[in-house]
């Protein structure tokens, strides 16, 4: 009985969203959605047209996807690494660490739109190549936006140790280093994934927005903007769809990693 319920739960978490998506696409393709929203097929093209554009421009789109992925994943990696290290430092110096992290959380309140142009300006002398210096600026934007979530969660994972676990380590006269590697670090693993569940979708959004302000014209986000400016709404929608697919794909990859690495935990 319970097993049946459990498998239904697992099934329905996938089934309902897919059902909802299918319903939306049906409404869209049949033009009902346009009637509801009062839109025309010029600003909101039919799904099949968007699909055709994606198919016909696949090589160009993939170039832009690649540029955006480098920014999103590069920034995510650097930001998460930095965030984790900050969490470790805070866990070592608990006295100031907790307050410091609260302060760092304030950084999260700075909107991407504000930091992107500033970083553009700051990195203008990094390289004579416009593509490279734009890349650096964009990666820095994503780095900043994904640092805080990781540092706060890493700190929690490193310090929220189950009762008696510390006593156990002390009773074996474990060194601080051993406690870190054998207890704190593995204990923080689920917290790393909590942070990534926030920052993986976040890194895609930050990457898209940072591209808007970049000097060099490349990337999925930038193509959305360029095509809207040129009133090529169908192409813009193609890039919007690709951006959504990227976000979903990265999230799925994250969930797969999580299910492998957290195997056996409750």
């Amino acid at each position, binding site marked *: 009985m319970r097993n049946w319920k459990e498998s239904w739960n697992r099934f329905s978490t996938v089934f309902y969203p897919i059902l909802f998506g299918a319903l939306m696409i049906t409404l869209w393709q049949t033009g009902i959605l346009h009637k509801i929203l009062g839109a025309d097929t010029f600003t909101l093209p039919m799904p099949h047209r968007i699909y055709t554009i994606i198919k016909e421009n696949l090589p160009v789109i993939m170039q832009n996807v690649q540029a955006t992925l480098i920014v999103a994943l590069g920034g995510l990696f650097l930001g998460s690494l930095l965030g984790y290290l900050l969490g470790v430092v805070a866990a070592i110096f608990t006295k100031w660490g907790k307050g410091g992290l609260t302060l760092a959380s304030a950084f999260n309140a700075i909107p991407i739109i504000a930091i992107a142009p500033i970083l553009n300006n700051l990195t203008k002398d990094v390289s004579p190549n416009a593509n490279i210096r734009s890349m650096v600026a964009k990666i820095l934007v994503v780095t900043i936006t994904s640092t805080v979530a990781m540092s706060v969660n890493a700190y929690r994972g490193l310090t929220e140790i*189950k009762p*008696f*676990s510390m006593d156990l*380590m002390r*009773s*074996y006269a474990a060194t601080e280093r051993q406690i870190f590697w*054998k207890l704190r670090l593995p204990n923080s693993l689920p917290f790393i994934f909590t942070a990534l569940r926030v920052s993986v979708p976040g890194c895609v959004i930050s990457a898209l927005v940072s591209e808007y302000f970049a000097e060099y014209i490349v990337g999925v986000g930038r193509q959305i903007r360029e095509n809207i400016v040129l009133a090529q709404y169908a192409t813009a929608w193609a890039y919007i769809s690709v951006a959504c697919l990227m976000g979903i794909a990265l999230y799925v990859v994250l969930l797969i990693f999580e299910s492998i690495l957290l195997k*056996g*935990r409750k």
Partner: protein
Amino acid sequence: MQAIRKLPETDAVVNDGVEIKIENMSVRFSDRTGGGAIDALTNVSLDIRQGEFVSLVGPSGCGKTTLLRAIADLQEPTSGSITVRGQTPREIRLQKKFGIVFQNPVLYDWRTARRNVCMPMELMGIPKQQRTATVSEMLDMVNLQGFGFKYPHQLSGGMQQRVGIARALAIKPEILLMDEPFSALDEFTKEKLNEELLSIWSKAKKTIVFVTHNISESVFLSDRVVVLSPHPGRISAIVDITLPRPRHLAVKDTPEFSALVSKVRNSFEGV
């Protein structure tokens, strides 16, 4: 000076048969909220012999866990002294001669049963081959062969606690300290594990200090039951358990057993 090698003090103590010597020990917790200090333990003196099974029994707040933690060097006594094999508890702890089993099993949920048992040996830098052999031996001893590759949440509460015992025994400790290890388990599982613990004890020949609030459990297991009373925490009696060994659960139905349980119960003061 150095040419004359002093005989290790421990030998004399071991010959004496006393493994843990507690003299006039007190533990006082200062109350930070502004009230008075709390006397967790006052003037406790107790000798525990090598290979002996001693229970510390008493109601909540009598300081039995504090006493165990003091022996394990997890709690500093305010006054008095503890020596273990003629050394300080800290020295014994640093030599990793204590095996501790806590109220909850404290298993790492990211490690399988085998790797949990393995953990202390990793800390000690014991080579892998030896670790693997010892883990198998320990899991056999606690009757968990076949469950080694399960994760903690796949095991019952009783099995988890048995993994905890296997882990404590894996480093071949001289002294096993157990802090209400079975208190969270149901009565059936508890009795089964009590019997198993006695068989492990007879095989492993360790000194065991066992904290419990269960009188019947303490009488069944022990050579001596140390009765503690609260406010302030103190030893109010030490009862010799003369029941023959090896003991099985049937001993609980004898009049001798009931008499000893009554004797322990009547030793409490001020509850």
